[in-house]
C-alpha cells in the first residue's frame, strides 16, 4: 500500500515532504499522514488521485488549522563545558528530554508541531548539530469530529 501511494506521488510529480504510516485500532486498516505542497488545483488532483486507489478508504485534507499535528525529532547535539547549561535550559524550555548522554554529545527527544521543531533546531544549530532524525508529521482533527 505504501509503495502504491509513494509511486502515485512520484509518478505524477507531486512532492512528498514527509510521510508517516502505521496500523489503526483495526489491524486491517492503516493510517497514513502525508505532508505535501502545491496550489489548489494540485491539491485537488492529489486528493482525487488518492481516492481513486482501490485500497484507499478515505482521504482527508487538513487545512486551515482545524487539526492538531505532532512530530518527534531526535537531535544529536555537540556538548562541551561551555554550552552545557545553555543547552539544558533550551531543552527545558521546549519541554524536551535528554535520552542519551556521551562525552561530547547529547541526544535530545523533542515532540511538537512543525514550528516548534523548526524553532529548537534553529536555536541548537550554532552549538553544532551532529544528526537529526524526524518521524514525519501525524495529524488529527480537532473537536468531536472523527475521521470515520
Amino acid at each position: 500500500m505504501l509503495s502504491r501511494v509513494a509511486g502515485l506521488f512520484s509518478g505524477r510529480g507531486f512532492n512528498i515532504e514527509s510521510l508517516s504510516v502505521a496500523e489503526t485500532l483495526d489491524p486491517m486498516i492503516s493510517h497514513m499522514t502525508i505532508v505535501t505542497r502545491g496550489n489548489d488545483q494540485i491539491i485537488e488532483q492529489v486528493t482525487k488521485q488518492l481516492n481513486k486507489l482501490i485500497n484507499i478508504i478515505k482521504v482527508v485534507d487538513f487545512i486551515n488549522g482545524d487539526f492538531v499535528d505532532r512530530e518527534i525529532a531526535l537531535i544529536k547535539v555537540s556538548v562541551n563545558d561551555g554550552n552545557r547549561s545553555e543547552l539544558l535550559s533550551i531543552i527545558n524550555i521546549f519541554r524536551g528530554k535528554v535520552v542519551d548522554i556521551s562525552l561530547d554529545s547529547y541526544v535530545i527527544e523533542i515532540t511538537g508541531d512543525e514550528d516548534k521543531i523548526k524553532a529548537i533546531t534553529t536555536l541548537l544549530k550554532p552549538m553544532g548539530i551532529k544528526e537529526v532524525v524526524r518521524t514525519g508529521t501525524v495529524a488529527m482533527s480537532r473537536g468531536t469530529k472523527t475521521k470515520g
Partner: protein
Amino acid sequence: MRLKGAKILLETLVREKTDVIFGYPGGAVIDIYHELPNYPSLKHVLARHEQGAVHAADGYARASGRVGVCLVTSGPGATNTVTGIATAYMDSIPLVVFTGQVPTMLIGNDSFQEADIVGISRPCTKHNYLVKDVEELAQTVKEAFYIANTGRPGPVLVDLPKDVMNALCEYHYPSVVKLQGYNPTIKGHPGQIKRIIAEILKAEKPVLYVGGGVISSNASSELLSLAHKLSIPVTTTLMGLGAFPEDDELSLGMLGMHGAYRANMAVTNCDLLIAVGARFDDRVTGKIDEFAPLAKIIHIDIDPTSISKNVPVDIPIVGDVKETLSHIIDLLKKQDKQKDRKEIRKDWIQQINEWKSTYPLAYVQKDVIKPQFIVEKISELTKGKAIITTEVGQNQMWTAQYFKFLKPRTFLTSGGLGTMGYGLPAAIGAQIAFPDRIVIDIAGDGSIQMNIQELATAVQYNLPVKIAIINNGYLGMVRQWQELFYQKRYSYTNMDIAPDFVKLAQAYGILGIRASKPKEVGPVIEKALSTPGPVIMDFVVEPEEGVYPMVPAGAPINKMLLV
C-alpha cells in the same frame, strides 16, 4: 471440495463467464496449462509473443465489451505484457492478466524467470495482486474482474506463484465482492443535472465533445437522442469514433491535432462545450488556454480525476455516461416546450457547413496510390460492416479521418499510449469475438513488423483477418515531423529494408497481394474480402504524403496547417 489452486483459478474463470483466454505457456504456469484441457468451455488462443496475447485480449474487449483475459508465465513472460497492459490502461480497457510467478519462498531471491511484475506494473494497472495464499485465490480473482469492469474500466494484474497453484484448499466461490475503498459513482448529482439542462437550453452555439467513455458506457443511442433532440453538432475524439454515426448531418468528425477543420473551428467558436466521456487530452486541446475560449464547459465523466485536470470545468458531473445522459433526456422531455430546435440552430449549423466546404478533407491522386484513397475504398467496400483496427502513426490518422465509422466498437486503435504493433493482434482478438464479421487491420510498413509473428496465430485458428499495409517505406509520422519541423532531416526513419510482404504471406501459407497503381486498389481489396482465411494486402503508396490538417505542437486548434 478440496481443489488445487490451478483448478480453483479455472473454476472461478468459468463462473466469471470467461470464454476465451489469450496466452503463452511457460514453466511457472505449466500446472495451470496441465488443468486447462479439463475445462472445455475455456477456449485458449495461443499467441506468439505475450505482447500479442495482451493486445489480442484488448481487441477482444474493445470489440465485445467483455473483459479480456490473458495467461502468461513469469519473468520475461510477465515483462512482455507491460506494453500491452499500459496500452489498455491509457485507453481504459477492461482486462485481467494472470502472470505466473516463482514459488512464494523464492520470491525476492533473484530466482530463474522471476520478475517483480507487481512492482513493475503498479503505475500502469488499475490495480494488481500477488496471491500469497491459495485461500485468497477465488476472492482475488472475483475482485479482479469486478475492478476491471466497473467504474472507469482498466487492466488488473494477478500474480500467481507456482506453489499457490499447487496448494489445496476448500473451494468457495464468493457470492459478493465488496471493497471498502472502491465505490464508483454511477448516478449523477441531480442538482448538477438541472444546471446542465439550464445551460443547454440557453446556448446558441453548443457542441458535444464525445470520447471513449460513451463507447465504454454503451451510450450511443442516448447520445444520438440528445444530439437530435436539441440539434447539437457532435465531434468525437480518436477514442470516440463510432460513438456517433459519421454519416449523420450533425457529425463534425474528429477534432484535435489531426481533426477536421470544421470540428476544430466549431469547438473554438462554440459558447457551450458539453464534454461526455472524454478527458481533454493534449492531442485534442492543443494550446490549453486557447481551447474553447468562448465556451462554458460541462463535463460528464465517471472518473473524478479527469474533471478539471487540464481545463477548468464550469459544471462538472461525476457519473456513468449512459445513466447521466438518460437522466438528462428524461428531464428534458418533461421540461422543454420547444420540440424542434432546428430553427434556432440554423445559423450555427450554417456556419459549420461553411467551414466544412472551405477546407474539406482532400487529397490529389494521379499515378501513385494515395494512402487516403485506400482508406476510402475500404470504407466504401465494407459498407459500415467491418471492424477496423489500426497500428499507429499516419496509417492510424488517415483511417480516423477518411473511414466513415457508423457504429461503436468498430474502431479499435491505441489512442493514449500510441502503441505500434497493436493492430494485428487486436484484429485477432476482435475476430475471435466475432468470427463472422469482417475484421481489417490498417497498418504501416513499420508498425506491421512489430508484431508480425502473430500471423501464425491467425493461421492456427483460421481467423480471416485482412491486413492492409500502407507501404511508404518510412516511419511515416516521424518523417512528417522531420519534414515540417526538422528541416527534412530524415534521421533513421527510412524503412527501405523490409520483407517482401507478399512473399512473407506465402511463407505463412496465406494469400499475399500487391497493388502499385490506383486502379488496382479496388480489385485487391475485393479479392482479399472474398478469399477465406487471413490475407495480406501490400499497397505501395506515395512515399512522402502527409496527414493534414495538422495542429503543430503548442498551437491552438484553430491554427491548423492545411497542406
